[in-house]
C-alpha cells in the first residue's frame, strides 16, 4: 500500500520548528500576514462572529413570532396603539432583513471556502501557499470593509427590503438601500478574489504526482465552488450597480414608474443568487466526503461520480435560476424550461448522497463528533434536498412559493447542510488547526442538542407553509400559533446547542489535550505535517502516488463473500 512519503531527512528534527501560530509574533504580523493559515483563522473568527449576531437576531424574532400579534417588538410606551404596532412591524422587517443579509452575504458564502478552504486547500494540495497570497489578504480586508458598510447601512438606515432587494420596493427607497448595495457590492469582490485564487491554486500548485484523480474530494468541491464564485459574482456586482444608479438617477431599467420591468431585476438577481446557494452547499459536500471517508476508514464510494457531480452541479446551477420566479409573472414557457432544468440539477445531488451512504458499507465507523455531524448531515440534507423537489414541480410551487415551506426548505439545506457540515469540519480539523483535541463527550452532547433543536425549529415550518402561512409575516392567523411556538422552542434549544459547541471548542484551544499530527488516521496530505502546521506547511515538498483514501485498514482481499 503506497502511502504518502515525505521525502528528505527523518521526521525527528521537526519538533523544534515553530508552528504558524508562534512563527511570528505581534498584531502587525497577523494584520500583514500572507500565510493562508492565518488568513483562514481570521476569516473563521469573522464569519463565526457574523453567524453569532445573525443567529441571535433569529432567536429574537422567533420570540416575537410565538404570538399571533406583534407584541415583543412593540416598546412599552406605545403598547396597544396603532403607532406602536406599526413601529413594531417596521422593526420586525428590519430584523429579518439584517438576519438574511448577514447570513447570506457575510457568513455562509465566505464561511467554508474562505475559513476552512483557505486553511486546508494548500495543505491538502501539498503546496506552500495559495497562488496569490497578497490577493488572499486583500480579499480578507475587502470582506471586512464590505461587512462594516453593510452593518452600518442596516443599523443606521431603515433597510427593510429583505435580503433580495426586489425593486420597485428597494429602488423607491432612499439612503439605506444605496449604502447596503455598496456594502454587498464590496463583499462580492472578496468572493471573486477567493474564487480566482482557488482556481489557479488547484490548477497550478498541486504536489508532484497529485493528478486530478488523486485530489481529496474537499478540493474538488472547493474547485467547483471557486468556478461558480468566479462566474456568478460579477453579475451580482453589475446588478447592484444598476440598482444603485437606478435609485440615484431613477433611470428606469427595473423601476416600472420610469418604464422598467421589476421581473428583469429578479432575473439579474437570481442569475447570481441561485449559483450562490451552490457556492454555499458545495464546500459542505466536500467536508462530508472527507468526514465519512476518514471516519469509516473506507475508500469513498464512487470517487469519480462525486468529483464529476460537484463540477456538473457547478455548471447546471447556472441554468435553473428561474425556479424562484414561477409565480412572478414570468412566462409559462420559461417557467417550464427552468422547472425541467431544476430536476437536472437534482440528480447529481442524489448521486452524492447515495455514494456517501454506500461508503459506510463494511467500514470501521468510529462514533466521534465529526462522524456524528456527518451522519446528521445525511439526515437533514436529505430532507432539504427532497423538499426541493416539491418546490421544483411547477404546480406545487404555485402553492408553496414565498410560504414557510420555502423558509423550511432553504434552512434545511443551508443550516442543515452547510452549517452542520461546517461544524463537522471544524471538529474534524480542530486538532490540526490548534494542535489541541476537544472533549469528545461534550462534542457528542452538543451534536445531539443541535440535532434536536434544529429539527424541532424547522420541521414544523414545513406544515406552516403548506397550511398557508406566507413568509416574512410579523402577524399571522391564530391557528398557526401552535407550529410557531414549537418552532420557537426549537430555536432556543438550537441556540443552546450552538453556544455550548462554541464554549467547549474555544475551551479546547487552551485546555485541550495535545493532539498529534494525525489523530484520526487520515491519509490525505494535511495529516502528513505537524499540527498545528509549520509556517510553510511541509518541511520538504511531499510526493503523492496514491489516492487520499487508501487507509491502512482497507483489506484488499476482503471480498464480497466473507468478513
Amino acid at each position: 500500500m503506497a502511502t504518502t512519503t515525505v521525502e528528505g531527512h527523518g521526521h525527528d528534527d521537526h519538533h523544534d520548528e515553530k508552528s504558524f501560530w508562534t512563527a511570528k509574533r505581534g498584531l502587525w504580523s497577523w494584520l500583514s500576514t500572507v500565510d493562508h493559515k492565518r488568513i483562514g483563522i481570521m476569516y473563521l473568527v469573522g464569519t463565526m462572529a457574523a453567524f453569532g449576531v445573525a443567529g441571535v437576531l433569529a432567536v429574537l424574532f422567533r420570540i416575537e413570532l410565538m404570538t399571533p400579534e406583534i407584541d415583543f417588538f412593540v416598546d412599552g410606551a406605545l403598547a396597544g396603539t396603532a403607532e406602536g404596532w406599526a413601529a413594531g412591524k417596521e422593526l420586525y422587517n428590519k430584523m429579518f432583513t439584517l438576519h438574511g443579509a448577514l447570513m447570506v452575504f457575510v457568513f455562509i458564502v465566505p464561511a467554508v471556502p474562505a475559513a476552512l478552504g483557505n486553511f486546508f486547500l494548500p495543505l491538502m494540495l501539498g503546496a506552500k501557499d495559495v497562488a496569490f497570497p497578497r490577493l488572499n489578504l486583500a480579499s480578507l480586508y475587502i470582506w471586512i470593509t464590505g461587512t462594516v458598510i453593510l452593518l452600518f447601512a442596516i443599523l443606521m438606515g431603515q433597510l427593510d427590503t429583505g435580503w433580495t432587494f426586489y425593486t420597485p420596493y428597494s429602488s423607491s427607497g432612499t439612503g439605506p438601500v444605496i449604502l447596503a448595495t455598496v456594502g454587498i457590492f464590496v463583499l462580492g469582490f472578496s468572493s471573486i478574489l477567493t474564487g480566482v485564487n482557488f482556481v489557479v491554486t488547484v490548477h497550478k500548485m498541486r504536489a508532484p504526482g497529485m493528478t486530478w484523480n488523486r485530489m481529496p474530494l474537499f478540493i474538488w468541491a472547493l474547485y467547483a465552488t471557486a468556478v461558480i464564485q468566479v462566474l456568478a459574482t460579477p453579475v451580482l456586482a453589475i446588478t447592484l450597480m444598476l440598482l444603485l444608479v437606478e435609485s440615484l438617477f431613477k433611470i428606469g431599467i427595473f423601476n416600472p414608474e420610469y418604464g422598467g420591468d421589476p421581473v428583469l431585476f429578479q432575473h439579474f438577481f437570481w442569475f447570481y443568487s441561485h449559483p450562490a446557494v451552490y457556492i454555499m452547499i458545495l464546500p459542505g459536500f466536500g467536508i462530508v466526503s472527507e468526514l465519512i471517508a476518514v471516519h469509516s476508514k473506507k475508500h469513498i464510494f464512487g470517487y469519480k461520480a462525486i468529483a464529476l457531480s460537484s463540477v456538473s452541479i457547478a455548471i447546471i446551477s447556472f441554468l435553473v435560476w428561474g425556479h424562484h420566479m414561477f409565480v412572478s409573472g414570468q412566462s409559462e414557457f420559461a417557467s417550464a424550461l427552468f422547472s425541467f432544468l431544476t430536476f437536472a440539477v437534482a440528480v447529481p445531488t442524489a448521486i452524492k448522497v447515495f455514494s456517501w451512504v454506500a461508503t459506510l458499507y463494511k467500514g470501521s465507523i468510529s462514533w466521534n463528533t465529526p462522524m456524528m455531524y456527518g451522519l446528521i448531515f445525511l439526515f437533514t440534507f436529505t430532507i432539504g434536498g427532497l423538499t426541493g423537489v416539491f418546490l421544483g414541480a411547477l404546480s406545487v410551487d404555485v402553492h408553496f412559493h414565498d410560504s414557510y415551506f420555502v423558509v423550511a426548505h432553504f434552512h434545511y439545506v443551508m443550516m442543515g447542510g452547510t452549517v452542520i457540515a461546517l461544524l463537522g469540519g471544524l471538529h474534524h480539523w480542530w486538532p490540526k488547526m490548534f494542535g489541541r483535541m476537544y472533549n469528545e463527550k461534550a462534542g457528542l452532547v452538543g451534536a445531539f442538542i443541535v440535532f434536536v433543536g434544529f429539527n424541532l425549529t424547522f420541521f414544523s415550518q414545513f406544515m406552516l407553509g403548506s397550511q398557508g402561512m406566507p413568509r416574512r409575516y410579523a402577524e399571522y392567523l391564530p391557528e398557526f400559533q401552535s407550529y410557531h411556538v414549537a418552532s420557537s422552542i426549537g430555536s432556543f434549544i438550537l441556540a443552546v446547542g450552538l453556544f455550548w459547541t462554541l464554549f467547549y471548542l474555544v475551551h479546547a484551544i487552551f485546555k485541550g489535550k495535545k493532539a498529534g499530527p494525525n489523530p484520526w488516521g487520515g491519509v490525505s496530505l494535511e495529516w502528513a505535517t505537524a499540527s498545528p502546521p509549520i509556517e510553510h506547511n511541509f518541511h520538504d515538498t511531499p510526493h503523492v502516488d496514491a489516492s487520499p483514501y487508501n487507509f491502512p485498514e482497507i483489506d484488499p482481499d476482503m471480498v464480497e463473500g466473507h468478513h
Partner: protein
Amino acid sequence: MSTTVESQSHAHGDGHHDHPEYLQHHFDNPAQQESAAKLGMWVFLATEILMFSGLFLAYFIVRSQYPEMVLSAHEQLDWKLGSVNTVVLIFSSLTMALAVRAVQLNNRKQASLMLIITILCACAFMVIKYIEYSSKIEHGLLPGIAYAEHTIVEGTHYAQEGWWGGPQLFFGIYFMMTGLHGLHVVIGIGLLVWLLVKNNRGRFSSEYFTPVENVGLYWHLVDLIWIFLFPLLYLVK
C-alpha cells in the same frame, strides 16, 4: 477595485534568496509562477467579461422594449468621435502588443517607447471621451431624472412626469457602459505607468515579463469591450 487589479496581476515582482530574484517563495520554478499568473489573469478577465455582460444585456433589453426610442435617442451621439476613439484604442492595442513583444526580445528601449505610445493613446481616448461627455451634459442628455434639465416643468422633480421609457433610459445605459469602460481605461493607464517605471528600472527581460503580458491581456480586453460597445451605442440604425 483598481488596487486589487494591480496587486493581482503582478504580485510576483520581488522574489528573494538563491532563486532568480523575481521568483516568489511559494512557487517552485519560474514556469509554474508564470503559468499561474497567466491563468489568474485569464480567470480575472472572465469576471470582467461577465460584469460587462450585465450591461450589454440591459442594453439589449432596453432596445427590445423601446426600439424606436433607442434608434432616435442615439442620433444624439457623435459617431465620428466614436470612430476616432475606436481607431485610437485599436492602435493602442497594437502598441501594447508590440511592447510585450519588445520585452520578450529583451529590447527595453523599444518596449518603453511602445508603452509611452500606448499611454498617450489611452489619454487621447479619455480626452475624446471628455469632449463627448461635456457636449452631452451641455445639451442636458443625462441619465434618468437629470435628463433635459432645462425642459423640466417648474416645481416638479422629474422631467415631464409619467414620461417613462424616454431618452433618459438610453442615456442611463450609455453613461453606465461608457463610464464603466472609461473607468477601466483609467485603471489601465495607472497600470501602464507602473509598467513603464518598472521597465525603465530594468526589471523585465525575456526571462521575466509576466506583468507586462498580464497588463497587455487586460488592455486588450478593454479594447475588446469597446469593439462591441462602439457599434451598439454609436452606429446601429
